[in-house]
């Protein structure tokens, strides 16, 4: 205590400066902490703000400060009572899960072929797959919309009207996620040693059998990564989810329409908008916390391989 009082302020400054010059690592350490503080605040503050808006009763919501103006946890129940929000959530999960199943199955076969076979036409076909992923979604919209509403026929065949069904969102999204997943899975599958596949073939397994009994199980972590990534991308998607359904819960509209319903109502209920947003983001937040390594590796590998 006494020693602290003897050193005057200039001395403290001098000592800090001295340390900074001679041990730059200390400075970097502090810079790192300041950076962590800044980025975490910037990333997480909007979630806090949503909670503040949700908990404040709607009548006292104007001119809100940094703390909730009242405490109204009932708003989270109100979301489900005002509109069939649970049905919207169910639709979203169903759409994301179906897309994931289709993409993993079809993408596995394609990833196996592209990853483990060297054949004529391999590179051009890969380029076709890659080029598709660069087109903006608006370039697919008009024909698909006309096809799904029964205004145009494909190769003269009668085609089921997919507008306002889950398939109207699932099919286009399966195609648009496919390139990323093919590239991810083909790198995973190509890493399995040839010997294991040959062994299965000698045991009498077919090539398809070897794919689903040996290669897919051995690359389970990779397949899981691809699956989680597909689920997140589809759940978060806006374009086709918004335009391929009318927007009522019965028309298989996903959760984004549920949330927009609150924005569209005559009585502006900001607290309900915020509460619905929090509920809608929860599944994704849980997924990130449980599977962060998969998501990180999938994202980086997928993007850098392409």
């Amino acid at each position, binding site marked *: 205590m006494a020693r602290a009082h003897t050193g005057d302020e200039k001395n403290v400054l001098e000592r800090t400066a001295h340390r900074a010059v001679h041990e730059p690592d200390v400075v970097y350490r502090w810079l790192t902490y300041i950076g962590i503080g800044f980025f975490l605040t910037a990333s997480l503050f909007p979630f806090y703000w949503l909670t503040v808006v949700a908990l404040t009763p709607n009548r006292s919501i104007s001119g809100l400060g940094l703390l909730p103006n009242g405490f109204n946890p009932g708003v989270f129940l109100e979301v489900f009572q005002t509109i069939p929000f649970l049905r919207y959530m169910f639709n979203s999960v169903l759409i994301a899960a179906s897309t994931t199943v289709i993409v993993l199955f079809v993408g596995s076969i394609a990833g196996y072929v592209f990853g483990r076979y060297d054949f004529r036409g391999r590179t051009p076909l890969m380029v076709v797959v890659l080029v598709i992923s660069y087109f903006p979604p*608006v370039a697919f919209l008009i024909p698909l919309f006309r096809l799904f509403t029964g205004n145009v026929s494909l190769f003269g065949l009668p085609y089921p009207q997919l507008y306002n069904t889950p398939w109207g969102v699932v099919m286009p999204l399966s*195609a*648009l996620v496919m390139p990323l997943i093919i590239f991810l899975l083909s790198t995973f599958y190509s890493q399995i040693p040839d010997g294991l596949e040959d062994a299965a073939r000698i045991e009498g397994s077919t090539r398809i059998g070897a794919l689903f009994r040996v290669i897919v199980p051995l690359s389970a972590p990779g397949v899981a990564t691809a699956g989680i990534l597909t689920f997140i991308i589809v759940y978060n998607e*806006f374009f086709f989810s918004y335009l391929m359904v009318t927007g009522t819960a019965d028309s298989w509209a996903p959760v984004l329409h549920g949330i927009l319903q609150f924005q569209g109502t005559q009585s502006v209920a900001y607290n309900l908008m915020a509460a619905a947003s929090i509920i809608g983001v929860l599944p994704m937040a849980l997924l990130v916390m449980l599977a962060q390594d998969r998501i990180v590796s999938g*994202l980086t590998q997928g993007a850098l391989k392409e």
Partner: protein
Amino acid sequence: MSTKKSQSAGSARAYRLDLKLLNRIERLSETQFVYVMLLPVFALLGTMAIWPLLYTANISLHADNIASADPVGAFVGLENYVRILTGEANLRRPFLDLNTPFTSALPVTLMFTAVAVVAETLLGFAMALILDQEFRGRRWVRVGMILPWTVPIVIQGMIFYLLFQPSLGFLVGPLQNLGLLSGSPLANSQDSLLIVILGDIWKQSAFMALLILAGLQSIDRSLYDVAEMSGASRLQQFRTITFPLVLPTLLVALLFRTIAALKVYGLVETVSSCNTVPTLSCLVISTWNANRYGSAAAIAFVIATIIALLLLFYLQQFRKQEHGGI
């Protein structure tokens, strides 16, 4: 009883057929096998991606036909493109009008892309440098930082809608006093563009950070030891080791984000409206809603062309760099 029996017989037959099919696939030569296996994926991509692209390309060469039952008019060649690029198309919002840059589609989209991507790159780089350090609780810091990336677009939009709602937010008042925002920011084109850019930066910086982090972690650590031995400062180490080695990854990440930013639509629709911030994708939708199929398709392909030019430029630069050594 009898129906059950016949059913099981049927399923047995189906199973045998299945085996037959599998056996036939097994007996194919390798090349044949490969193409049979690629059938499902190209059936899906063919109907959901390739056919729509060809169809859109085709109607972009046909006139608008608002009145009649068939919205696709007569073949007019490249006229739609010419009319859009010269500003004669008379769209809901102009394609390019330098007198009103904040309400014409090309400048709005380019401003959005340039500002958002540059900011995301800088912030992402900083985040990646932080996450590359060793410190306690690093995993949880990473979760916190990537959380925005996992937020659905509609909720991302809702967050920024609520943050900049004048009757609600604590942010709007002070910003208005500083003269940065107008009275109703979500209805003002200039302010809304700024808010949409902020929203994009909030969500996508983490994506940039993760890609750059992957690049950072692939750098051989012994290079830094050598640098330290020869007395290089941290800054010098960054300039001579970190930056050049992470540059290829950075460029890929940059390309990815730029392409995605050029397609922006959902964020604009939720935060503000397509009429206030008319990005190129917005313009396609509003033109399509006005039943002008030909023009809408042509704008869609203008976006695709911009992306293609960007890709070509990038590939050329990348090739040059590879030939240039390092």
